[in-house]
């Protein structure tokens, strides 16, 4: 009993305190070894392994070894712990919400522009799709993280449900009022179990929503201009949207089905008429969905903006990590690998195999040229949504520290509002107040 208690206690402590000691293969003669820590599973891992194998076969100077380290938060935690132990991998795949923390990591990382300058390997920002590189870049356009697997949010819908509800399955709703009307029709005709759901509530209903409508998610240009950013999701436009979701939930046209990707099975199982989710669901839908589905642009509110801007990305980027005694050859290998990934055929391969969007303009052109979109109609919709309009300071992405925590806070407060504990304005005020505390703590910690 005593041992049990102690173990339980020390386990809780170990969860935060013990650095996970990472082992990296010792230097040996022959090609320079580059270790890449990633969070890709199944088909995604296979595709990444293929890219690494091709890189290793294409030259003899470097060998890239991909290592699966668990989910995104696990990779980030492991990378941080490894860095603290002086054993950081050469490359770490860090999810988009970790970008703010990575950029504050100072000498732990080598930003892409710096890597390019020091190694002489050309990594030109102009090759990358603006809304992709913007998310991982500095305010002045220089690249910091290397864009890799990127998706964006879209609106999936069931053509079967639309038909049953008397809606045109080839003409999905484009604006929020149209979405509300469609959801009502679906409910009235009982055309689907649930008229509307959303995965990733904060990413899609707040972060994407802000970008699309060119309204600030946070001050300081969504955090790009400084660590002093404050959240601004309690603005009139945001509260209006929350109110819309609350109203829809009340009348039974919207169903809150959980955080992150928890609602995904409802989409794939064909339970929902309209489902907001990542564009990366295409693979799953193609493989498993037993209903006719369609993909559409995220809806916008015409009372706020006439023509919506680009959506922002999700997914992850590759970061070049530093470690004591890391050689120039090793950094050069990292840069060469980054350059290799950006080659059109490799970028197109990754895009077509996985369902992530191409990150380079040439990769997109390559996929158009080889007839991929003819064979898979609609697969270019996410890219078009990312590319439309011009990137403004509010549609470039978010640059906030501890963003995962802020997402969590927003979702908690939204859930409390859905439970009827508070109204839309109070929910968003609370979310802002709590998030600002987190942002200030981050600011203090970074300056420490």
């Amino acid at each position, binding site marked *: *009993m*005593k041992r*049990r*208690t*102690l173990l*339980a*206690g*020390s*386990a*809780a*402590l*170990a*969860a*935060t*305190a*013990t650095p996970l000691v990472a082992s990296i293969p010792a230097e040996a003669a022959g090609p320079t070894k580059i270790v890449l820590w990633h969070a890709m599973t199944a088909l995604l891992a296979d595709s990444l392994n293929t890219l690494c194998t091709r890189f290793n076969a294409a030259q003899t100077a470097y060998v890239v070894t991909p290592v699966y380290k668990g989910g995104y*938060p696990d990779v*980030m*935690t492991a990378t*941080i712990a490894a*860095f*603290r132990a002086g054993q950081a991998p050469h490359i770490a795949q860090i999810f988009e919400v970790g970008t703010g*923390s990575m950029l*504050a*990591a*100072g*000498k*732990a990382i080598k930003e892409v522009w710096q890597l390019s300058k020091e190694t002489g390997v050309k990594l030109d920002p102009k090759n990358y799709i603006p809304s992709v590189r913007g998310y991982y870049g500095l305010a002045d356009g220089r690249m910091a993280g290397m864009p890799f697997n990127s998706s964006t949010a879209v609106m999936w819908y069931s053509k079967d449900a639309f038909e049953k509800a008397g809606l045109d399955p080839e003409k999905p709703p484009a604006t929020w009022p149209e979405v509300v009307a469609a959801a009502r029709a679906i409910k009235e005709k009982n055309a689907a*179990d*649930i008229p509307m759901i959303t995965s990733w509530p904060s990413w899609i209903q707040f972060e994407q929503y802000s970008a699309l409508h060119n309204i600030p998610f946070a001050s300081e240009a969504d955090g790009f201009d400084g660590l002093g950013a404050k959240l601004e999701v309690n603005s009139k436009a945001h509260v209006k949207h929350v109110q819309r979701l609350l109203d829809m*939930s009340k009348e039974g046209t919207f169903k*809150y*089905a*959980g*955080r*992150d990707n*928890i609602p995904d*099975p*409802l989409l794939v*199982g064909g*339970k929902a008429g309209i489902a907001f989710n990542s564009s990366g669901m295409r693979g799953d839908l193609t493989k498993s969905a037993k209903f006719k589905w369609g993909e559409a642009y995220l809806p916008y509110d015409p009372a706020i903006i006439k023509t919506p801007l680009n959506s922002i990305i999700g997914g992850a980027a590759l970061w070049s990590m530093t470690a004591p005694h890391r050689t120039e050859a090793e950094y050069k290998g990292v840069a060469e690998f980054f350059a290799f990934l950006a080659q059109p055929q490799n970028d197109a391969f990754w895009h077509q195999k996985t369902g992530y969007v191409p990150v380079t303009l040439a990769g997109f052109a390559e996929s158009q040229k080889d007839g991929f979109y003819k064979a898979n109609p609609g697969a270019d919709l996410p890219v078009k949504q990312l590319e439309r309009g011009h990137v403004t300071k509010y549609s470039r992405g978010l640059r906030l520290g*501890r963003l*995962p*925590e802020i997402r*969590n806070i927003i*979702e*908690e*407060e939204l*859930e*409390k509002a*859905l*439970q009827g*504990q508070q109204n839309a304005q109070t929910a968003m005020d609370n979310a802002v107040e709590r998030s600002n505390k*987190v942002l200030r*703590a981050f600011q*203090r*910690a*970074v*300056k*420490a």
Partner: protein
Amino acid sequence: MERRTLFQGWKLPVALVLPQLLLTFVFFLWPAGQAVWYSMTQQDPFGLGSVFVGLSNFRELFADPLYVHTILRTLVFCFAVSALAMTVALALALVANRELRGRAIYRTLLIWPYAVAPAMAAILWLFMLDPEIGLLGHPLVKAGLPWDYHVSGLDAQFLVVLASSWKQISYNFIFFLAGLQSIPQSVIEAARMDGARGWRRLRTIILPLLSPTMFFLLVVNLVYAAFDTFGTIWALTEGGPGKATETLVIKVYRDGMINQDIGGSSAQSVVLMLGVIAITAVQFRFMGRRTKT
């Protein structure tokens, strides 16, 4: 009677104790010490800068009403899980202790859930009770029962208590059964001859004789509910909706692993550690007294 083995010199005893001491140091004292140190610093995730801030992490923690709510919620959760798991296990043990056909099978089946990994237990419950895809949950919702743990905090709390208790029932069952079997048959028969039956016999004879087992199980269950339910809760609700199912361990994990707030999370760990020390001290005291009498 006291037994004592005497060693010549000090080298052999030290050599014999050393592995244990080393293990304790490496796996308990060292990380614990580090957590205590971190809890008094403020540092960025990468450890590039670290400032000693004394007790300010603790002050901030207890000034946060959300943290105090989490403590209270954890207490309620622990007692709810312990009460449910122990009551059901006792009832099952009482039945299993009778002369039953196929008693061995019945007992074996009851022990199975203990072998199920926490996250798997959560998934099993999810498949049963999810309002949209659950075998049981979906028909109930269709029949008009307002059940949705994705939105209702109460439903979510009910679910995590249910799933967590279920895992612990087997463990309690084994101990209760052993406890029941160690009650001398003569005592039970004497009670029977005095005319004590059913509930009366349970209340006046069996329960008092089981009380050492019950106290032991209560402590084990409380500790289980406080620490070992992480996998179940995380897989079911991740602490939501709102903060309805966020226990202290969930918060430590969230703040430390996901939010990378090393100082704050370490401070929480230290608070947890004090809690464990307190529980253990109480248990030693009471258990020690019981074995003496």
